[in-house]
């Protein structure tokens, strides 16, 4: 029985020896109850690194998209006017194509595109 009590005393002694300073306890409790608003510095660094990587990706994507848009041909509207067996196709910038039957073979359905010189 005495032996058991002695062992328990050792535990009590150990607990008392390890009891931390009240300043440290207060600091830890205060920070914990602040609800985790104060993140460790390493978390801030990680967040900053992720944000920087995302910003770089977003910037790269924007530049790439702008390049793609510049390379795409502009859609232009055309007007087609029929005049007898001739068709006149006119583009927005004023360029014209005359589409008509070939002179040597006047069978229906045969047309040639005459490109302006």
């Amino acid at each position, binding site marked *: 029985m005495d032996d058991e009590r*002695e*062992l328990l005393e*050792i*535990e009590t*002694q*150990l*607990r008392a*020896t*390890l*009891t*931390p*300073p009240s*300043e*440290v*306890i207060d*600091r*830890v*409790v205060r*920070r*914990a*109850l602040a*609800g*985790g608003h104060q993140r*460790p510095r390493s978390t801030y660094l990680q967040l900053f690194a992720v944000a920087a990587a995302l910003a770089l990706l977003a910037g790269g994507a924007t530049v790439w998209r702008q390049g793609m848009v510049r390379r795409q041909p502009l859609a232009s509207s055309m007007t087609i006017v029929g005049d007898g067996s001739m068709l006149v196709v006119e583009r927005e910038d004023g360029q014209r194509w005359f589409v008509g039957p070939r002179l040597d073979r006047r069978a229906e359905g045969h047309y040639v595109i005459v490109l302006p010189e």
Partner: protein
Amino acid sequence: MELDEAVRTLAPRLIAYGVARTRSLANAEDIAQDVLLALVRRWQQLGPPTSPDAFAFAIAKRRASRVLARQAVMVPIDFIRGLAREESTVEQAYGSRVGLRLALSALRELPRLDREALLLRSVAELSYEEIASVCGSSSAAIKMRISRARRRLAASMEESSHGRRTRTA
């Protein structure tokens, strides 16, 4: 139990456990801080865990192991680079107490699993069942480990204090 109360009762035990595991008050404070923040977030998002004590000390056990692994690698590097953390006067006074040094030395002599079980019982004040769940063992095995560790610790501390008395005389 309310969150505030749980944090207040856990904080000193977590710091003491951290000191016993890492032998550094600064590391113990970091561990306790991380654990309590995890507990607060868990509590706010999903409600209180079934056993806040077991929840907290399961995390503390993992964090302490990680700190010890990091220490093994970083301490020589920090020493060479002169980056060893400077502690405040309060922390220096705490760390330089003879009783604490003796207790830490005596604990160090215990087998790792026995020491872990004893700390979770004596310092963390967990039940045998909670210790078994944290350590992934059975309650019977934990009881045996704690009993053995208590005897060895008592012998070791007795021996140390006797040696100290002899040297002082």
